[in-house]
């Protein structure tokens, strides 16, 4: 019951993410999604495994505190405008996101799951989150919003990993978390460098670097 609620909230936050026009809001939604997913293992009743609790705490800490902190610092440093500034309009994005969600439902329907798996919504939700992340990455112009897309993409992968959490070694999940953190950290540095080099954080300027 509780996991299904969390999954539904995750999928709803996907739609909010693509529809919002403010950078700060997009970040808040991504963080919210991360925290929701961080709580997932506990909601799934996996509290008896010590390493899973540890991982859940780490995930919530990284996604709910460390990453927003980095974002806030980046926002302050680069004096970003508040518009998201997409390539694709909000309505079209919303429709694409809906299309992706529908497609993932269709796909998950066709993917055979291990018999006895309780959470049938988990796979479609993770695929939908993945697609949303990609959509954000592709359709947003500012480097910072692209980082948000990356974060959402990682959320999708994390959700997929939860399906196997009991069998997966803790090392793998810790690796994903570390990867996420390093990714965001490096991107923050890159954003700063783009701004210094081109006096803007618009990634279109990066095209000048091609050979």
């Amino acid at each position, binding site marked *: 019951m509780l996991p299904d609620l969390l999954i539904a909230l995750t999928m709803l936050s996907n739609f909010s993410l693509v529809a919002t026009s403010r950078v700060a809001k997009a970040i808040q939604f991504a963080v919210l999604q991360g925290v929701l997913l961080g709580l997932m293992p506990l909601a799934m009743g996996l509290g008896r495994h010590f390493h899973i609790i540890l991982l859940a705490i780490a995930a919530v800490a990284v996604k709910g505190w460390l990453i927003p902190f980095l974002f806030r610092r980046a926002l302050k440093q680069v004096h970003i405008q508040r518009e998201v500034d997409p390539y694709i309009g909000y309505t079209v994005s919303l429709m694409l996101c809906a299309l992706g969600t529908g*497609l993932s439902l269709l796909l998950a329907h*066709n993917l055979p799951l291990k018999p006895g798996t309780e959470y049938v919504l988990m796979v479609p939700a993770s695929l939908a989150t993945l697609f949303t992340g*990609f959509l954000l*990455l*592709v*359709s947003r112009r500012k480097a910072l919003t*692209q980082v948000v897309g990356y974060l959402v993409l990682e959320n999708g992968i994390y959700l997929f990993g939860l399906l196997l959490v009991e069998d997966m070694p803790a090392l793998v999940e810790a690796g994903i978390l570390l990867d996420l953190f390093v990714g965001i950290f490096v991107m923050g540095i890159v954003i700063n460098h783009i701004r210094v080099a081109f006096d803007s954080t618009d990634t*279109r300027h*990066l095209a000048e670097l*091609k050979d």
Partner: protein
Amino acid sequence: MLDVALVLASSGCWFAGALASASPRAPERLATGLGLLGSLFALGAALHLLLGGAVSGLDFRVWGLPARLELDALSAAFLLPLHLVGGLGLIYGQRYWPVQLAWGSGRSLRFFYGLLVAAMTLLFLARHGLVFLVAWELMAVSAFFLVGTEHEKPEVRRASWVYLACTHTGTLLLTAMVILMAQRMGGLQWTALPASTSPWFEGGILFLALAGFGFKAGVLPLHFWLPSAHASAPSHVSAILSAVMLKTGIYGILRVSSLLPGIPRGVGGTLLALGALTALYGVGNALAQRDYKRLLAYSSIENLGIIAMGVGLGWTGRATHDPWLMALGFGGAIFHVWNHALFKSLLFYGAGALLHATGTRDMEALGGLARRMPRTALVVFPAVLAVAALPPFNAFLSEWFLYRGLFASLGRGYPWSAALGLVALALAGGLAAVAFARFFGTLFLGAPRSELADHAHDPAASMLLPMAVLAGLCLAVGLGAFLLLPLLDRVIAAAAPGTPALLAAGLRVDFHRLAGVELGLLALVGAGLAWLRRSPEAPEADLPTWDCGYAAAVARAQYTGSSFADAWAPVQPGLRARRPRLRGLFPGGASFRQAFREPFGEVFLEPRVVRVAERLLRFRRFQQGHLPVYLLYVLLTLLGTFLWMLLRGRLLG
């Protein structure tokens, strides 16, 4: 156990030496010492094994799966030249390419040299597909950096890139071969294959091995990277590339074929014919070169062709269950691997000494160096005789093996390939004599053709010493070859399991007699020289050569190397000459031009590759430089994969 551990330690020593030479703190002596220590370890272990030690192996696990390093006679046979030439090259390179050179390539050269030797040592031990491929790639990549040592020159960059493309194509084929073998053997561990029901499978492995290893060995259509790569590398690197790295291709072919249950009969004959063509092609083009290092590289192609002929002969013997033919074929191939390593590295060291002293690779700018560099001329001369397969030097004997084998197979009903092989071997030997008469005559004899030769001088002792060692070995192997016969028997038994030891029994008497005759000849020559020295009637006069009464004899009027080789123009397919037509009694000024283009690589392949590359340019459109576009590609691929998974069941039923 001890032997393989020693060889492994040797690889470790070379690797440590490479690391030490990369750091600016460590003294150069440390790196050199480590490398030499490694060479001593490996030489000791290989000799111990060849002289009668047992096969030793080391088992360990890669990702939970068993893997094995093993030192058997075949590995030892290739470790010997590797560590001999590797160690001598290390000594030679100290003065040839000082570490303090202005452009700072000395350190990277030493690092990759050490890495190359370490990787090849590991390669010869590996009995596991993955370990083998890793060592192979490590070797190929370090050779790439070595070839590109002087990367500030455009032609060197070009040569190294062509080499890299070729070696990676070869690795691709070898990867496919390793996968096929793994399917057949049930794991990446290399074990002997059982006799199979599907000849296609073995045929596939054999074909992939021939193509993949053939790229490295420079067998005919796959040789085109070799001349420019060897000419561009520093000379002691050219020596190890030519003396050992090309031979890793031969090693691979022998190793993989030793695991197969049988070789189809036609394959041996085909390889024999291919080797014969390679030998002729190599020597013909060697005749046409003005660049003396390129000449040596083409001569390497010739010798690799001869080695391939030996392997082909051995395979023919294996297919027809003829142990004598196997012994002569494989024995000749392995023996020629050793001999070629000895004389070709000596020739490359000699070429390096010339390059060091004069700064040019153009033969026609030099001449008369025997007076200015007498010691170099003295130590290079044995190698010139050896490469022309003249007694009493070593290569004469390995070609003797092949002649014996080819004549034997003529009598046993494989006439076409054997007849072709005999003609090709004889012709290649003769042409090699011409090519190296030209090499020695143009460089060392006559009068200097330009002022570049004026200030030439003998190199330092640390460069001369390795050359002298190699020259001595060339002669010693030529005279003492009967001692090597039992060693060769052991190697053949490893290369083709189940062969009885025949060489020691079959050829010992012949070799004793040969050595006796050669010693007699040497004594005669020595006595003649002594008599000439002592006789008072020969006054030492510093007069010019008799010039047929021509009034103004100048250095420009000498035979050039090209005019010397002109009579053999029909066998030099890459040479294009524009000859002036002279008419009348007093013709005016005229000029003669000659240019060489690699017949296969530059004339045939290059325009085609350029055309394909131009067609591929249209894909540049996909490189937009926008990150979102790239991510879109990823997304589309992902979606496409998902859709395919979704629809596959419906579409394919």
